[in-house]
């Protein structure tokens, strides 16, 4: 087994799928010779040429719309959206067109399209280059949403996404591009809707997505030292969501914190907490707690930005409160 970066993992997944299927192409800003600002796509244009690694003008709705039409007519586009924040620019093409085409056509037209983009704050990029907006698209029926938490997931989920006949949005954590993980040399895919139990535990469940998986693993280390056994679960895709695995863990530990880097209000954490309340209420010893990003635009100053995102210490502190029973009185 070898260790590669998340960036290399994505690159490998794309190259393998492009070799396997000549209808797969990449389209977006600075994807060809530049290989994106994060250099994730370096080398692909040399192998596949500019007909399949297509540099576009800076026109997100345009190339997104073009990709939807290409997907409807036999091609399999992988759209590169340089920053997740730009998703607001393409909302009509993604949510009114791509997401609804199969349904509105009574099942006759398909949109096999992957939208690759990113999330994550603390890169000192201020409010328009730091958002984690996956909840916005998860809200729309017809879109699948994947949140890889390491190089391993980034590769396996990307390959599955490219072979899926539905529009899939993948949010990579832009701070994780250089993080290494063990990734098999041989081909593998990660099915959608299968959560990964990163760490087993007995006392409390930490459900964490994307960037927050590492945060919760660190929190679990802190808690372990104090004699609290935390289970860490990564849903890997939020649409579809592996409710069964989450509920099983909630029933086992009876305490749950949901941690996600999207804004807390009306977000992923509330959705998952709601489902656990509805379906595991009598198994719970405490309210399900949400921990999302602070509900403010992401500030530039490091002194401010760092306090907007859940940290291992903050998660551990919440877990202690839950274990001590204080959250019950607070509720």
């Amino acid at each position, binding site marked *: 087994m070898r260790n590669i970066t998340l960036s290399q993992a994505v690159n490998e997944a794309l190259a393998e799928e492009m070799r396997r299927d000549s*209808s797969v*192409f990449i389209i977006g800003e600075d994807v060809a010779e530049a290989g994106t600002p994060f250099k994730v796509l370096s080398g692909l244009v040399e192998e596949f040429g500019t*007909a*399949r690694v297509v540099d*576009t*003008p800076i*026109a997100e*709705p*345009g*190339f*997104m*719309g*073009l*990709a*939807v*039409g*290409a*997907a*409807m*007519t*036999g*091609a399999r*586009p992988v759209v590169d959206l340089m920053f997740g924040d730009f998703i607001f620019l393409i909302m*009509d*093409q993604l949510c*009114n*067109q791509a997401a609804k*085409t*199969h*349904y*509105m*056509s*009574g*099942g*006759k*037209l*398909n949109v096999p399209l992957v939208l690759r983009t990113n999330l994550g704050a603390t890169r000192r990029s201020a409010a328009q280059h730091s958002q984690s907006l996956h909840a916005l698209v998860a809200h729309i*029926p*017809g879109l*699948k949403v994947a949140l890889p938490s390491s190089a391993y997931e980034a590769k396996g989920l990307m390959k599955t996404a490219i072979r*899926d*006949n*539905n529009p899939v949005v993948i949010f990579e954590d832009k701070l994780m591009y250089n993080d290494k993980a063990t990734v098999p040399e041989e081909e593998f895919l990660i099915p959608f809707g299968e959560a990964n139990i990163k760490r087993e535990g007995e006392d409390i469940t930490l459900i964490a997505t994307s960037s927050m998986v590492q945060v919760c693993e660190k929190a679990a280390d802190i808690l372990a030292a104090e004699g609290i056994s935390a289970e860490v679960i990564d849903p890997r895709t939020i649409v*579809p969501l592996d409710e069964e695995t989450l509920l099983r863990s909630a029933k086992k530990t009876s305490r749950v914190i949901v941690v996600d880097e999207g804004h807390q209000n009306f977000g992923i954490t509330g959705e998952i907490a709601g489902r656990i309340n509805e379906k595991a209420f009598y198994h719970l010893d405490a309210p399900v707690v949400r921990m999302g990003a602070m509900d403010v635009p992401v500030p530039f100053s490091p002194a401010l930005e760092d306090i907007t995102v859940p940290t291992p210490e903050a998660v551990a502190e919440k877990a202690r409160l839950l274990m001590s029973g204080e959250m019950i009185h607070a509720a």
Partner: protein
Amino acid sequence: MPTFADNGDGGCARKILLKAIAKALHMTHSNADDYLRMYRQMVRIRTFEDNANQLYLSAKMPGLTHMYSGEEAVAVGICEALKTSDKITSTHRGHGHCVAKGADFKEMFCELLGKEEGYCRGKGGSMHIADQSNGNLGANAIVGGSMGIATGAAFSAKLLGKDDVAVCFFGDGATAQGLMYEVMNMAALWKLPVIYACENNGYSEYTRTDEIAAGSITARAEAFGIEAFQVDGQDVLAVNDLSQKLVERCRKGEGPFFIELMTYRYHGHHVGDINREYYRSKSEEKDWRENRDPITRFRAWLVEEGIASEEEIEAMNAAIKADASEAVEYALNAKYPDASEVDMHVFTDVEHALA
């Protein structure tokens, strides 16, 4: 800008030109068939719309609909230049495109009434009606929303080595959307086989387009180096002739192209838009209906050229009318989709999304 035909003011030179074209073509049997099919398709659209309007007025149709009546020569002239695998994208005013690209009345009326046998199994309705098997990529209820889709269909044709052409139908109102300029830029850069067909009926919903559109519409396409044409959208032969040339050139890699088709919608923005004198006069409407109707004009030409007799035309009209009545009757009695269909077709690989 090459002006292919004038704006339909019946200029003498143009009449002579049309006659010359007709004489030159003079009526091989297959041409006569083409002309009769074009006439038939225009009448089918008008008849479909008359029935749809009646369904609305008699409260038998759920929701609203946007009538294509008056614009028939645009859809027919263009779609008659296409083959089945060529793609079109349509609009909220899309019944005409749907008929012209080969759809049948029965499935169309079923869709209009939300019935299971509709082209979209009743999930699309009037604003999303499309016969997908004939290359119709859907009618779009977002004004200008399909500009990218049509351009992408042309992109995939090129990528996958097919010789299909894509036609993007949109109205003059859609020329105000930014998406159009983004995708025309890419289509021109990459020489995509797409034709942008602007149906200029003079009104952006309830507002005169000259109040909201600065400069020239064709000049906007020309700014990208796209060859742009203006044509009388009430003259099906002029539209078809230009379309054939441009489709052929698209197949040879000479696209994209832009056509502004000068036309008129007889009804309001939608069927409920009855009192509309605050934005356009009855005399203007009357003038277009009486003097520039595409079906009346073409019918007169067919008779004049001896391609069809008045009797033959009347018989054709009556057959289409009967066909439509039968389809309406069928659709009224057809069954609605079962409630279990509500969460089907959300995803391709999940039979029931909420199961």
